[in-house]
């Protein structure tokens, strides 16, 4: 059974339909990447899936439960989905460690010492332990994104959503973050990642979903999508993003 199953998902803003009947599945341990041109609905899709945006129609089955039905415990669903943002979104007034422990203490109701232990373990995992006492402003972009990944992972989510995790970073820092996400991929962490970065997509995905104007056009492995695809939209997109690197 799929961990996430999306059926005919649509989302419209002020009469403009951004997602037009999306169908996709993500199984436990699987990692998929969503790619497509700017404005094709990639980030909207991710935000609909954890109900940050309410879908206009369609169904999202998460762990066998339809989370689009009325009365669903949205907080419980969200706490089970890790979310990493493009611009890190670390809490500026908290240290790296406090960023990680906040959710553990307030949502998982862990004791402070237990939360710190868990945070240390997760920070160690991505080589951030020496930065635990620093504030976000004292970190590089790559370190911020790694801290944001740890914050999400520490909650032991069923799935990790990553919204353009490298697009705000320079190539060197981007590589640093790709390495961390690749490590998670190799550890079979379930992930759904939105990105423009073919390098990231290739190294962290079992398959790539190509979205165009709110519709899933294709889903395939990187090698088959990237080079000389029969669909001219896909061919053109990947020619441009790969040529620009």
């Amino acid at each position, binding site marked *: 059974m799929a961990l996430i199953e999306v059926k005919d998902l649509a989302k419209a803003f002020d009469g403009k339909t951004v997602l037009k009947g999306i169908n996709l599945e993500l199984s436990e341990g699987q990692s998929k990447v969503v790619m497509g041109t700017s404005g094709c609905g990639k980030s909207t899709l991710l935000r609909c899936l954890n109900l940050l945006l309410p879908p206009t129609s369609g169904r999202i089955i998460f762990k066998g439960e339809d989370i689009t039905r009325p009365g669903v415990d949205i*907080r419980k669903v*969200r706490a089970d989905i890790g979310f990493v943002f493009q611009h890190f*979104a670390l*809490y*500026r007034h908290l240290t790296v460690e406090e960023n990680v422990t906040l959710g553990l203490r*307030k*949502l998982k109701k862990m004791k402070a010492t237990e939360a710190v232990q868990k945070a240390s373990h997760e920070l160690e995992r991505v080589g951030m332990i020496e930065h635990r006492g620093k*504030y976000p402003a004292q970190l590089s972009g790559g370190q911020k994104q790694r801290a944001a990944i740890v914050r999400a992972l520490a909650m032991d989510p069923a799935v990790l959503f990553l919204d353009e995790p490298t697009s705000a970073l320079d190539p060197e820092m981007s590589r640093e973050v790709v390495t961390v996400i690749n490590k998670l991929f190799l550890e079979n962490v379930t992930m759904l990642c939105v990105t423009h970065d073919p390098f990231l997509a290739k190294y962290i995905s079992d398959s790539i979903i190509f979205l165009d104007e709110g519709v899933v056009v294709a889903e395939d492995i990187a090698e088959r999508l990237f080079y000389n695809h029969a669909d001219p939209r896909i061919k053109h997109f990947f020619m441009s993003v790969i040529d620009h690197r």
Partner: protein
Amino acid sequence: MTFGNILIILAEGAGYTVLVTLASISAGLAVGLSLAVLSTLRWKAVSLFLAVYTYVFRSIPVLVLLFILFFGLPGIGIRISPFVSMVATLGLVSGAYLAEVFRGAMAAVDGDEILAAEAAGLNRWEIFFYIIMPQMFRMSVPGMINEFTSVLKYTPFAYTVGIPEIMKEAMSLAALTLRGLEIYLAVGILYFLIYKLFVMFFMTLEKRFRVPGLASK
């Protein structure tokens, strides 16, 4: 009577000045914070109430409001003690200003952080208490110090309702000794010292909770 003696006599009233200031600041903070929290609800009726509140209490002179509460309300059977009248007056007025300071600081909290907190599963109140409020207070420090200074400077009005603070002591002493210049100069010095202590206290607090990259604006 030396200048030092004058200072010592007036310092007896300083206790009331500090008490009125602290109580008024606390009331102002409670009012300002409540209004700022209400403003996050974005309900039309609440927005209208907030607009009217801030407009009214920022435009009525402090002394007029004090007289309404202390001399006016007994006319309809409501009697309030001088101390409560003074604290309520300054609390209502400074609350209106502080609400604006807090609202500005809340608007400066990064929307992505709030979104991240929502995405993590925190509810509205948890987001306010753990994400917005700590940043809001830090960014409000200069505005709060300004407002607290204003409250301190309004406390001499307390003498008009009979609170024996510095000004009342000074007026009694000046009437007895006819040494107005020295006495009111001493009042100025005492106010300056109280002001300095308050600012030092708040600057110490600000320094203690300062966070890199989260400067007060």
